[in-house]
């Protein structure tokens, strides 16, 4: 007790030893465990985030030569004072259109995925032959990588491809829709592709949600005389609220990033008919090489997504952290 006189605090606490780093100490363990992920994310996320902001304030393009040379000169001499941002918002309709298109495409896709997924999931509450096999078959699209999905539908949507032929059979006359060369049709084609790819996820989530709906309230409503439709709207859907929110948030996070499938399916074309924000940024940065300008556009997107998704996560935050 009296051996250590270095700090008054320590002796009043009765601590005889000076503090030393002990990796087994309970207070260091969580920090040590989390450090690797923090380093990885700081290097690969925070640093690029800052860098992006810096680029976006310059007028640098790869043809100006090495960024660091250009950067030091540009940065020390003049920052472009947000000119990129001004221009983006005021004079670049393509940017805002791409943003709007992404939102419309996302909303339509998610709604379709939700309805189809819920419908299929409710079928799987019943008993029928070969349920397990059909279940696995329905999940397959989700496991296929986006590039292959885009390519597969590229084949199917050819004007002399099978989709036109099937439509021809239904219409009893040859159908020659230019799926990938017509703006509206291409937009539909992208949505069909996206819905095909990710409906299985909604199906899975909805099935798990439906299975978690307690049976007795449904039976109680039946005995009280409610029809199946009434039970669906008043008992089943409200009980699935949390699950539905989770599905929309999780899929919403992914759908706004949509790139790979479109890259192979339409490349954003024809014109800009299917140009989502990701494709727009890609073209700006890697086809036109206007990196600084693309950086400012991307920076806005980053800020929007972080804010938006944080809002969306709010209702399920507790559930996610507590692990139910």
């Amino acid at each position, binding site marked *: 007790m009296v051996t250590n006189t270095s700090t008054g605090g320590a002796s009043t606490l009765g601590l005889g030893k000076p503090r030393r780093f002990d990796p087994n100490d309970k207070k260091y363990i969580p920090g040590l465990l989390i450090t690797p992920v923090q380093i990885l994310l700081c290097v690969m996320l925070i640093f690029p985030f800052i860098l992006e902001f810096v680029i976006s304030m310059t007028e640098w393009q790869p043809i100006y030569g090495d960024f*660091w040379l250009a950067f030091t000169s540009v940065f020390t001499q003049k920052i472009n004072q947000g000119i990129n941002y001004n221009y983006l918002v005021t004079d670049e309709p393509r940017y805002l259109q791409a943003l709007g298109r992404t939102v419309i495409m996302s909303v339509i896709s998610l709604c379709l995925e939700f309805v189809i997924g819920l419908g*299929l999931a409710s079928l799987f509450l019943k008993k029928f032959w070969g349920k397990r096999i059909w279940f696995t*078959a329905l999940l397959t699209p989700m496991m296929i990588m986006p590039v292959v999905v885009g390519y597969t539908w590229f084949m199917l949507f050819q004007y002399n491809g099978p989709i036109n032929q099937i439509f021809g059979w239904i219409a009893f006359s040859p159908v020659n829709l230019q799926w990938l060369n017509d703006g509206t049709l291409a937009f539909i084609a992208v949505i069909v592709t996206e819905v095909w790819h990710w409906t299985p996820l909604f199906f899975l989530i909805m099935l798990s949600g439906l299975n978690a709906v307690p049976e007795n309230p449904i039976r109680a409503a039946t005995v009280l005389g409610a029809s199946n439709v009434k039970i669906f709207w008043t008992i089943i859907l409200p009980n699935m609220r949390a699950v539905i929110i989770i599905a929309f948030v999780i899929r919403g996070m992914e759908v706004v990033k949509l790139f790979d499938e479109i890259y192979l399916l339409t490349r954003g074309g024809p014109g800009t008919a299917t140009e989502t924000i990701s494709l727009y940024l890609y073209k700006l940065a890697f086809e036109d090489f206007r990196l600084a300008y693309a950086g400012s556009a991307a920076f806005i997107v980053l800020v929007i997504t972080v804010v938006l998704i944080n809002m969306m996560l709010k209702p399920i935050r507790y559930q996610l952290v507590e692990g139910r």
Partner: protein
Amino acid sequence: MPERKFTPFNFIALIAGLLFAVFPILWMVSTSFKLRSEWVTSPPTWISSAPTVDNYLTILAPHILLERRGGTQQVGDEDFGGSKDDAAGGAIADFLNRSAWPGIKGSIIISISATILSIVVGLMAAISISRYRFGGNFTPFFILAGRMFPPIAIAIPFVIMFGPKVFDITDTYIGLILAYAAVTVPFSTWMLKSFVDDLPHEIEEAAMMDGYSRWRAHFTVTVPLIKGGIIATTLFIFILNWSEFLFALILTYTNVQTIPVTLSKYFSATEGTLYGVQAALAMVSIVPLVTVGFFIQKHLVRGLTLGAIKR
């Protein structure tokens, strides 16, 4: 739920759903076995009149195709993208260029390394968050943020970051491994966290009572007990890494290739779209995914919902 019968209408709906889900895959399978002359026809060819594995040989073993015709151009070579006027040497170069092995090699190296990195880092973070509530609400969502950004927005600064004056890792395995791990670590952390959450903490506490240090308790008790979860997460992260496209497209040139990029490049080959060859490569690339996906079928929903929905 009260007894509910499977009605004819249900049956039609199920069949429609199944056709919609399976038809594109079957079309791809069928195309991968088509002769070149059947790739683009009007009306389309549904099933090849003489199924061939040449599309697969083109990407996996082009030398067999060349040996078969004695290394020289012969009648019928137009089926494989050559023309009668080509010199033999040109044809050889042409075939070898289409081999998918560089892409397959790259995909395997990068996916496996990035998966291991992502799992190791994610597992540590998962224990920290689940067992010690490290960082309260902020840290888990900070980690999740990595998944929220459109990768293209992060890819723009990557081009400079990976460039010669900074890390100088453009077109290297290490560069892609880091990028892949960074975008999959939110998934691995959250999915593993949900498995650790499922494990009662009394188990580790019992081990600590027995004189195990905390580190030892975590790595000799916690980790083995969630082995199943770790395997499922590993396979799931592997699927994500194997499918990743954008970073490879932007951050590689010739040294490093991955299957998705190889696949997208056939698209713009000079002879037009090589439907059959592309379909064959697509098949080769999705076989591991569908196999792995089948094994972790019941964990897929947990992974994709970040552990929010467990079954």
